């Protein structure tokens, strides 16, 4: 069985007090508690403070480009579906630059987990508005305040019948771990949007601000009711629900591809002998 020690990676270079620290320790604990070995995990990330997370733990890592986390993660899963593939992204990364990939990953439904560090701000580039920044927020780039409606990732995902949609809060690591374990264990594309206050650049959505607002979805809440889930995903303001909003049991992308049912693509041996009769088709 793996231990937390097995997952100990490099020393993080995040700001003191950053919400990312809790996400890091939570993901490691979740993997340990699920009995998953580092060698069975591939973390794929983009660019931003979130993108560095895989370096601070120990597992197979592909830290790619801004917004391109999901195509890399999806294809890696197709190449070797015996790996637990975890895509790590930020709100700008995933919902801005990578918005198109986000939509299509939901459609494809690969069995991967997407953790979005949602701090409603661009941290690494020093404080510009992100797709989830509240309307009216003033930044250096938005002197009249943000004009756009913030993107609602949960409502968007539910509207597209995403296989698993949840929201957690970095300030409540205990509950976050539960959600993370559920997301990783879920068969299908699982989105876990994590409210993760940026202590340096987001002066509005602070730990305190969230603590006053977040609450857990009721015990009797039924995550299989899509309409209800959609309704709850629209709640935002004085009360912000956390939990598993929506789940379904769709066929995964890998399950739909007959050629990888017997064994993962990566374990299939190649020999020219197996394909040489192809030439006769042109003869």
């Amino acid at each position, binding site marked *: 069985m793996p231990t937390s020690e097995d997952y100990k990676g490099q020393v993080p270079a995040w700001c003191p007090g950053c919400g990312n620290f809790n996400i890091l320790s939570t993901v490691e604990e979740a993997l340990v508690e699920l009995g998953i070995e580092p060698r069975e995990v591939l973390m794929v990330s983009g660019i931003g403070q979130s993108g560095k997370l895989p370096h601070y733990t120990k597992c197979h890592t592909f*830290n790619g480009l801004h917004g*391109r986390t999901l195509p890399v993660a999806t294809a890696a899963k197709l190449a070797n579906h015996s790996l637990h593939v975890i895509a790590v992204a930020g709100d700008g990364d995933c919902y801005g630059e990578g918005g*198109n990939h986000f939509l299509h990953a939901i459609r494809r439904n690969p069995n991967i987990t997407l953790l979005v560090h949602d701090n409603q701000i661009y941290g690494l580039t020093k404080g510009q508005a992100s797709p989830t920044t509240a309307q009216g927020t003033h930044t250096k780039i938005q002197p009249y305040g943000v004009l756009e409606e913030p993107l609602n990732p949960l409502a968007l995902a539910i509207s597209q019948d995403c296989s698993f949609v949840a929201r957690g809060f970095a300030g409540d690591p205990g509950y976050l771990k539960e959600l993370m374990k559920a997301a990783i264990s879920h068969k299908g594309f699982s989105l876990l949007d994590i409210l993760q206050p940026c202590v340096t650049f987001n002066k509005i959505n602070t730990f305190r601000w969230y603590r006053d607002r977040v609450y857990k979805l009721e015990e009797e809440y039924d995550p299989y009711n899509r309409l209800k889930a959609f309704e709850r995903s629209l709640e935002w303001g004085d009360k912000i629900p956390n939990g598993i909003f929506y789940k379904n049991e769709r066929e995964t992308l890998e399950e739909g591809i*007959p*050629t990888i049912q017997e064994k993962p693509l990566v374990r*299939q041996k190649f020999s020219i002998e197996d*394909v040489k009769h192809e030439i006769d088709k*042109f003869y």
Partner: protein
Amino acid sequence: MEYTLRVGGEAGQGLQTIGGALAQVFSKIGFHVFTHQDYMSRVRGGHNFYQIRFSEKEISASRDMVDILLALDLDTIEIHRKSVRDDGFILYDSEITKKKFEEPEFIDIPFKKIALDVGKKSVMANTVATGAALGILDLGLETFRNVLRKAFEKKGDEVIQGNIACAEAGYNYARKNCPRCEAPEIREPENRRLMLIDGVNAIGMGALMSGCKFYSGYPMTPSTGILNYMASRAEEYNLVVEQVEDEISAINMAIGASFAGVRAMTGTSGGGFALMVEGLSLAGMTETPIVIAEMQRPGPATGLPTRTEQADLLFVLYAAHGEFPRVIFEPGDPKQAFYLTNRAFELAEKYQIPVFIQSDQYLGDTEWTYEKFGLENIIYNDYRLREKDLEGVEVYKRFKYSSTGISLLAVPGEAGKHLVVADSDEHDEEGHIIEDSETRIKMVQKRMLKKLPLIKKEIEPPLLYGDSSPKIVLVGRGSTYGVIKEVVDTISKDHKVAMMHFSQVYPLPERDKFDYIELLENADLTICIENTATGQFAKLMRAETGFEFSHQILRYDGRPFTIENLKEELHAYI
């Protein structure tokens, strides 16, 4: 003996069906065949044609003049009538064209009526027309019957018999109503059979036979053929083929699959490649092997979507930020496309770099005939390391420094206890982010400066065809190969002329195996022939070697060079 047959009509009329069937018939009889297609960017209507040249000897290009014009509409007659030789024929159906022609070259064949009478379906008019063309040539119907049986295998016996009957009726009608066809000069070649393949299928098959297991792409003319090919073979050969949301995803997926341990490829055209540029740089930084087919069409922007050009060379060469090695191959014919795709995978995997197969619409769509490709020269070395291969390795470092710049390429999850870490940021030997200058310098040296000279050594010299110490050298790359070769054949009686063809264009080959620069310097006339407006290869040669061609012949109207047209252009210099 050689014949050229052009089938013309609107998109959606079945030109490909007729042309494809005829090309198959000729190749199965044993003729050398060269086909090319000219089509508009629309699903129905417009004017398109499919041209088949066949001969007893090897051929490698298209001609302007035709012997038989098979017109499926009036436009075809109006557009192509002047291209028909004096002793040629125009086959048409006056009921379809609503116009009767009395000139001797016209043969009015009621394609539609025969189809309805004999096959009970007007759609079989195409089979009647194909049968009629074979009738004019007096080639017999046996091979065509077999082609029809195979084509309609899944549709059942009734459809097969109906089509065969239509073919026979068209054939007989043409024989009876073609007084000038009394003494056909065509003789069937001796019992032999040739394979018939076009550029896109050759690239696809090359990838398949190189162990490519993953292909991602977004449909874009003229690269879609490769995506179609790979998808059609997926089930039989256990491939994973993904149609993606955009080309950004296509290249990132290919990189993801390759990182995870399988050979991966993506394909697109210039506009799609513009979106892939960021991902190309990622492959360069993470040293992830990938093969990219870049099938050119005229730009800028949407350009001429279904036509041909070679104007992406410098774009592909300089695309992406930062410095990293890449290789660009430009095959001259489907056979080269097949073997070079295999070589592309070998080099991509060996050096952990992106390698391009750059071609264009012209070569992508043209079909050529060959003796069956031999597979003994197909290279397959598995450079990926799994558990057993790493037994002696205590600490695995994905980007470990080495004298060659090449580090061990382990398969994540299949490498025992070892972890594989890659980063788009500058990184240390383990793959983790760094910012110090010392590591940066070492990594640049590893990725770029150590690998590049080794890669350069692997590049084959250009092909010299014709006179071995020529006074005139016609230089080309990629798809101009066939036409230059035939032009050299036709003018070599009067001139000391040779073709120098580059299919491995970047890095340019070293001069130790064949000092091609010296050969060029010793010639009186060196003419670089390209489908670009600015002579991009000539620029590359000048930049890399200092050599300047004496002249250039450039075509940039979206059409390929033809034998007649290139000869005419050469008149200005020879």
